[in-house]
């Protein structure tokens, strides 16, 4: 779940609701986050230094000061990349072992 959040933030900075929507789209409804869970996860990610809170893009700031935006930090970006590489490796192993069907490309 945290990976999903990081992936959304990799697209650019986002606020809570955006993250929820995007993960829902991405996973086709399989991961449907609720605010409580989301913000705890974000807190954990922040504590580990992978995510940072920002003020939000300048254009939007005026219309809604309550929104908090989150952005991926450099270490965070690296962690995402590392994790994706690891998964990629696993996928390859899976393909070799014939575990994955033809639909996975």
């Amino acid at each position: 779940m945290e990976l999903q959040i990081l992936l959304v933030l990799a697209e650019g900075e986002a606020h809570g609701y955006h993250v929820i929507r995007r993960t829902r789209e991405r996973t086709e409804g399989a991961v449907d986050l609720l605010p409580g869970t989301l913000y705890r996860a974000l807190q954990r990610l922040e504590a580990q230094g992978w995510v940072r809170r920002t003020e939000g893009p300048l254009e939007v700031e005026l219309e809604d000061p309550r929104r908090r935006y989150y952005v991926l930090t450099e270490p965070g970006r690296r962690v995402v990349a590392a994790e994706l590489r690891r998964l990629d490796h696993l996928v390859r192993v899976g393909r070799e072992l014939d575990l994955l069907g033809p639909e996975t490309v």
Partner: protein
Amino acid sequence: MEQTFADLCAEARGRGPARLAVLWARVVQDALVQGAGARLASRRRAWRTAPRPRKEARTMSFAIDARHALRTLRMRPAFTAVALSTLALGIGSSAAMFSVVDTILVRSLPYPEAEELMLVMEAGEGAESMWPSFQNFVDWRDGTGAFETMAAFTFPASVTVLGPPEPSRVEAVGVTRGFFELLGVRPERGRSFGAWEHRAGATRAAVVSHGFWRENLAGAQDLSSVVLEMGGEAHSVVGVMPAGFRLLGDPEVWYALEATGQTSVRGAHWLRAVGRLRDGVSVAEADRDLDRITERIQQAYVGETQAVGAHVQPLREVVTGAARKPLLLLMGAALLVLLVACTNVSSMLLARAARRQGEVSVRAALGASRSRIVRQLLSESLVMAALGGVAGTAVAYAALRVLIAVAPASLPRLDEVTLDPRALLFTAAVSLASVLAFGLAPALWGAGRGTAQRLRSAGAGGVSSHPLWRGLVALEAALAVLLLVGTGLLLRSFANIVGADTGFAAEGVALAEVSLPAGRYGSEQDMARFFRLALAEVESLPGVERAGLVTWLPIDSGNYLGPFELEDGRRTEEAVGYRVASGGYFEAMGIELLAGRSFDEPAAPGGHEVVVNRSLAERYWPGENPLGRRMRAPGMDAHNDEWLTVVGMVGEARHWRRAPGSQPEYYVHYAQRAYHAGSNAYLVARTEGRPEPLLGALRSRLRAVDANVPVRVSTLASELEGDLVDRRFALLLLSSFAVLALVLTSVGIYGVVAFAVAARAREMGIRLSLGASRARLRIEVLMRSLTSVAAGLAAGLALALGLSRLLRGLLYEVPATDVATLSAAVATVLAAALLASWIPAERAGRVDPAAIVREP
């Protein structure tokens, strides 16, 4: 986070209300789970070894949880039944009571913008309040800047209406112009009075109540020809007020006050004045405004009025004032019951949590995620709370219907009472809070260690000595005894009232209330003649031992005529009770004759006799024989200067509703003050045996004397009973709450003790096999439970003594710290606790040591 939530809501709302509701439920659940999870985070990190399993998908898992929760509850029917009914009773009774209190005491009166309506009284020298006179009212109304409008109205007076179908007595109220408009209520038929009808000498008009219209006028559609003869004048009926319209009295007829031309003097206290405040004006400002006007009145009309200021009070307070204390008391009782119910449910959930701790630790060890477990427990709690809430609503609704049906009609605004959703929400929230708190307990205690273990463990002290359990038992005992003490005191008070020595005989007395219509009885001789004939008729009725006449029953204080003079020149200022009676009255009423004689019958026309009661004699002729003394009773009439000679002294005739202590009173024969008797009098008949069978004959005999005189028959016992109805009702409610609390407390204690016994079964088995006696075990269990109860009783008693002040105004001849009542309450709770603890204690003694020890 709120913003995100708001966005989600907006999205869900677009897809329909069901989605919104589901979203809400899931978010609440999620928030609680995350909150609980956060607390556990540190503990988890300590022993976490394997990577945390991924979060499972959560599509519609809330419904699954709910169904599972229902199944779990169904698997333990006894637990569920007791828990739910406890919740339902607690929520239901409090919500019903709260609705009643809210409607009657808090809600605005049913007039438009009722918060602006004020009652205005004259303020006297000693800051006492007096009813205003017409002249003062007019000056206020015309001179005020604080009130939009003002109007005045009389106290309801019984008048004779010679009209369809036969002469009857109705309550009539005279109103000044703009009265109905001020209240903002329009007649449902016809119209209210026009300005021209509020002038002296105008043609008389009347507005009638819905009830009068329906019953006496048979619901006539066309009012144009309906005429009522009242007070010797023909009043045409111009309007009908809607059903339920009333204000400080429930009259059937209203008439224009000014038209009668009787506006009395500035110093007479006989009207009630109401006003509607201007926007933005405060009560204090209105008060000052009228004070200023009153000062000017004082200066302009020196000596004519006692008013030195005005007193402005919100009308709602006046209407509901008398009911305030008892209602608040009952509300307190209901809250106590709610508290006991919540405590019960909490302890049941705690016990269940302790029992299930094993299950939880196993599941956690097997890898169930913490939040999953928490979510499941939460769902169970929510389902239970929801079911309890629904059941509670049903109970509240039923309780309210019963309450309204049983309540005395004198309870103000009773017809406005409905179930208040806020009341329901409040009580449901309280119960929900306790259910949630204790339902989640197993998760919050961590996996298989800590508090839960201590609660269960068969340690040296054992589970029932854990402070939490003892605390719960003590709390319930305290609440129960508090409620019982209050109820007991009021019960004793009531018994005192009913059993009080009144100085007259309440049983075996028939009454006929008559009033001579002004148009037909113009002179005192006519009135006196009627009474002579009437008394003769009544006395000759078979079954009547003695007949008499009196203007006011001992229930009321009698007319106060103001100061009276004694022959040695002393003048008394105090108000003394005065009644017009006949010679046979004292015997008929069972009032003891202490000295001298009663009036001669028939009274000599020129005779000036007076009978005094013992208080009066002792007050004004202490230590002397009152017979032969003379006094003068001013009557604002031709009899002012006549000296009356005391011919007899009678005992006190008291009634609990009047001020305590003795009251000086005197009686004058009706031949001397016939017009007082003419306006309203009771013919009193002492009967052999029960008076009820004679009522019909009594009535027809009196109607035979003059068919134009309305007669209302009843028995003295039923008149007295009327006063008691209110108290009886309040006592009924209070006793119900007390019994409920006692039952719930007993159930609670039973539960705790049973749980303790079950949890310590192993230890007991071991002790038994080591030779301990069963009796000893039983006694131990009992003692454990009773010590907690005793602690609770002590606390409850202390609380009761502290709160005794609250009851003071309601008690009659019972001290708020009455020892007998306190002991009885304590004994009752102790007995109930003993009984509740006995059964599980018995079971403790019957534990089979072999079976227990063999268990793992």
